[in-house]
């Protein structure tokens, strides 16, 4: 059986201490993502957890070829994405979408919400009339919990949680199979972040989505993940079913991360 998503020996190198001000030839090569391999089955939520600089965002972006890997393969339903021509890749990309951490930075402030959400349709289904596109945008906005009148408004008129919903609507309008979510609730308030996490869970069931969920927070990941991969210095230190990783981790580093989570003392009353 062909796995839904398979990542094999993926690598990305960067120069240390590079940049335009660095003297020529300075800095050694280091692997931001170092020989990472894993499988994801359809309908799963595969979480990649790690601290800042561990390479999790680079890894996530390489899955969609937003960053080109230096070595390795990404098989999507059996096709190696890295061998595809730009034109072919565009066709595949409509099946895979991304949502970002900062809902303030990821929406064009000069476009109306309707245009933002309908834009992927304009690219991938150019034959649709504008009115048809906007009708679809209105529907998906309603599904993520916003009113239809959001269509004619601008991003700055919305709160952080609402903007994250707009980002979700834009990601889902093409009915993708795979959604890569990079820290989707880290910039949100606790009460609003919980709303977005539960919405993500509902939408996954409804649209049959597979999630790659990137986060620095084990408590956040614990809410959605079916599988957890723990990443450190470019490598996966362990991965497996979420229940197992959260309760019986085998890697010292995972134990260290779990032990560092500040816990609230709880009474069963709540």
């Amino acid at each position, binding site marked *: 059986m062909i796995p839904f998503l398979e990542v094999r020996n993926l690598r990305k190198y960067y120069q240390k201490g590079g940049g335009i001000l660095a003297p020529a030839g300075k800095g050694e090569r280091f692997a931001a993502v170092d020989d990472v391999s894993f499988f994801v089955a359809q309908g799963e939520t595969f979480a990649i957890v790690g601290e800042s600089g561990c390479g999790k965002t680079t890894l996530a972006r390489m899955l969609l070829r937003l960053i080109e890997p230096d070595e390795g393969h990404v098989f999507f339903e059996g096709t190696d994405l890295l061998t595809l021509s730009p034109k072919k890749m565009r066709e595949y990309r409509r099946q895979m979408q991304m949502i970002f951490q900062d809902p303030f930075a990821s929406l064009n402030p000069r476009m109306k919400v309707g245009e933002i959400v309908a834009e992927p349709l304009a690219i991938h289904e150019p034959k649709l009339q504008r009115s048809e596109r906007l009708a679809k945008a209105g529907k998906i906005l309603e599904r993520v919990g916003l009113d239809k009148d959001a269509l004619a408004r601008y991003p700055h008129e919305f709160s952080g949680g609402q903007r994250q919903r707009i980002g979700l609507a834009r990601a889902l309008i093409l009915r993708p199979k795979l959604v890569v979510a990079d820290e989707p609730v880290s910039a949100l308030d606790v009460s609003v972040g919980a709303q977005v996490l539960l919405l993500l869970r509902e939408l996954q069931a409804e649209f049959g989505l597979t999630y790659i969920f990137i986060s620095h927070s084990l408590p956040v990941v614990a809410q959605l993940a079916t599988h957890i991969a723990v990443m450190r210095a470019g490598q996966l230190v362990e991965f497996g079913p979420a229940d197992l990783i959260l309760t019986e981790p085998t890697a010292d580093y995972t134990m260290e991360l779990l032990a560092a989570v500040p816990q609230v003392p*709880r009474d069963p009353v*709540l």
Partner: protein
Amino acid sequence: MGELLNIHSLTVELPTAAGWVRPVNEVSLRIAPGEALGLVGESGSGKTMLSLALMGLLPPGARVTGEAFLASDQGQQKDLTNLSEQEWRDVRGREIAMIFQEPMTSLNPVLRIGTQIEEAIWAHEPGLARHLVDRRVIAALEHAAVPEPELRAHQFPHQLSGGLRQRAMIAMALAARPKLLIADEPTTALDVTVQKQILELLDRLRRDMELGLLFITHDLGVVAKVAERIAVMYAGRIVEQGPAADVLRQPLHPYTQGLLAASPTLERGKLRPIPGAVPQLTQLPPGCAFAPRCQYRRGECERGVPEFRPAQSGHSARCVLL
């Protein structure tokens, strides 16, 4: 009285295009010497504006009413709502210090760490001899558990990791031996393993130096680690306060209960969000500001802002259900 800080009915008003708003509304709080008070709130709750009021750093045009007494040397009380800029210079840094979420924005990127700590010491003890200052700089870094303090004193902020930068900030804040430290989300930008170390450091320093600590955060797990008492803030008002263990284990206010239920933990499948969003300060309801989101809402909630009602010793909340 024995209090280090005694805030009574403090209100901060700011002018906006839509009229005056009150980001801090009739707030009363006390902190004893050596005590850690956790101030919990989401964005827009007014927790940062309260800390700026205590540092004399409010934006121009702000109106302040109420009182905030700081116990000063020789047993006198200074009202922080009523200081001249000259008086503030003696208070800021020397009696009250503050650390922030992102040390990189509060450290000067072109000055060595040691030089910045020197400035903090000299600002308050201008006559101190050079060799004594050097020694104090190293001592301050050691105090904040910065490894290799001589080396770090000669480095620039960008050469330090996030955790070390926050330690350097703490060293700088405490170099003039203040009595009150305001820490505004000091670990939010840090990795969990580093966060744990910084929280432990702050706890140790508080005990060693008899430091009053006002710890501001949105994270209930973090506040559980550092605070002895907790005050929960919503839309400018304190809605609940009490001993940390009581507030976290038996929260009285529906907002505190909701916040606890909405905070992700390592337990799976227990997350319950609070419906709706934090209200705009320009559009507050007439009564309890949380009422529109509250599952226990009744008629009287909308009639007026509930007074504090005590539940048990030192634990109280602004809610009609009590």
